[in-house]
């Protein structure tokens, strides 16, 4: 764990020391249509956490991650996300490498206006079964899963909005368990309270509404009880940027849900990221 943090911190610090540039705002908890400029690289050092309670269980997850993305063209980027998972379930804990994600995004439409930009993109992510699925609790799904969808948005000097829809296909994993497929719908609004000049610190505040629906899990072809249903999250997020560096983060709070039977439900999810482009 300490070695992972150290390597990530050294890598990021070395990049920051190189003093090179970056770009683009987007949602924090949902996909956005922004892509990196041609030949640009974006490094993100992030931290996800989630707490869930219910049916006599308390679960906590802490997941630091390192993500790298590269702009093949101004419209097309590829990337990799390497998570380290630390999970607690009541009196059991496990930690180690999580499921590595490979991703690509193509911005298929863009309209530039003075001081504003409309854009839309399609994305595809492949989650590999690299996490330990024999541990208790499991650190990985043990399955190769696909996450795909489209995102659109508007960015101007003052206002922002984004919308996206996505589908996650889960395949059969460890022990014959197949998690239910998931659907996602997101809408986001944002504002830059103070219009700043180039090379000045800049803050953007956003509110996301994230809807998620999961199908029932299956075990060897049979539906499992206490799985599936939908949840709606209210998510205030922020972006703070200064020259080449961005800090962004937020909290997801569940405000409505309809889950099948009895399930542990998330109390919160939080994310904090340090982003750098060069």
């Amino acid at each position, binding site marked *: 764990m300490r070695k992972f943090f150290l390597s990530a911190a050294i890598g990021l610090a070395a990049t920051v020391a190189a003093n090179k540039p970056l770009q683009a705002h987007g949602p924090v908890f949902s996909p956005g249509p922004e892509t990196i400029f041609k030949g640009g690289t974006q490094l993100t050092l992030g931290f996800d956490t989630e707490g869930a309670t219910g049916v006599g269980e308390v679960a906590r997850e802490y997941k630091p991650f390192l993500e790298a993305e590269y702009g093949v063209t101004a419209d097309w980027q590829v990337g990799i996300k390497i998570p380290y998972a630390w999970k607690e379930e009541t009196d059991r804990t496990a930690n180690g490498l999580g499921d590595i994600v490979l991703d690509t995004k193509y911005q298929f439409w863009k309209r*530039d206006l003075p001081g504003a930009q409309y854009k839309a993109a399609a994305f595809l992510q492949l989650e590999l079964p690299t996490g330990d699925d024999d541990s208790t609790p499991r650190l990985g799904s043990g399955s190769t899963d696909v996450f795909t969808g489209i995102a659109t948005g508007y960015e101007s*000097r003052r206002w922002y909005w984004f919308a996206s829809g996505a589908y996650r296909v889960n395949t059969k994993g460890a022990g014959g368990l197949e998690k239910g497929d998931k659907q996602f719908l997101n809408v986001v609004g944002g504002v830059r309270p103070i219009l700043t000049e*180039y090379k000045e610190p*800049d803050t953007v505040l956003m509110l996301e509404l994230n809807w998620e629906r999961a199908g029932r899990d299956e075990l060897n072809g049979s539906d499992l009880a206490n799985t599936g249903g939908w949840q709606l999250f209210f998510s205030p997020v922020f972006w703070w940027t200064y020259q080449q560096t961005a800090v962004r983060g937020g909290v997801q709070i569940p405000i409505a849900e309809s889950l099948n039977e009895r399930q542990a439900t998330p109390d919160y999810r939080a994310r904090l990221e340090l982003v750098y482009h060069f």
Partner: protein
Amino acid sequence: MIRIIRTAVFALVALLPVTVFAAQTQYRLQVDGLACPFCAYGIEKELTRTDGIAAIDIDINAGAVTVTTIEGATMTEAQADQIVKDAGFTLRGFEKIKARAESGKD
């Protein structure tokens, strides 16, 4: 005598900027899609990869990028268009501004 020296000094001072900056040229790029300081770094990055660029000044509120070339270097509208496109924006206008020395005479 004093008047002659004073005149000569004034003339020298007036001509000095012309001598120093005579070969530098400035271009004004009007860029659409430029919405935030963070995004603008894409343009700076693409410009700094280009040979012959001496200075870059970005005015986000005006959507304008002013590029100063080094002595003997020039920039074409096609070059500027490609640079802005690679940064993820659209070039709306391209204008060659008077060389810095000439503007000093105005």
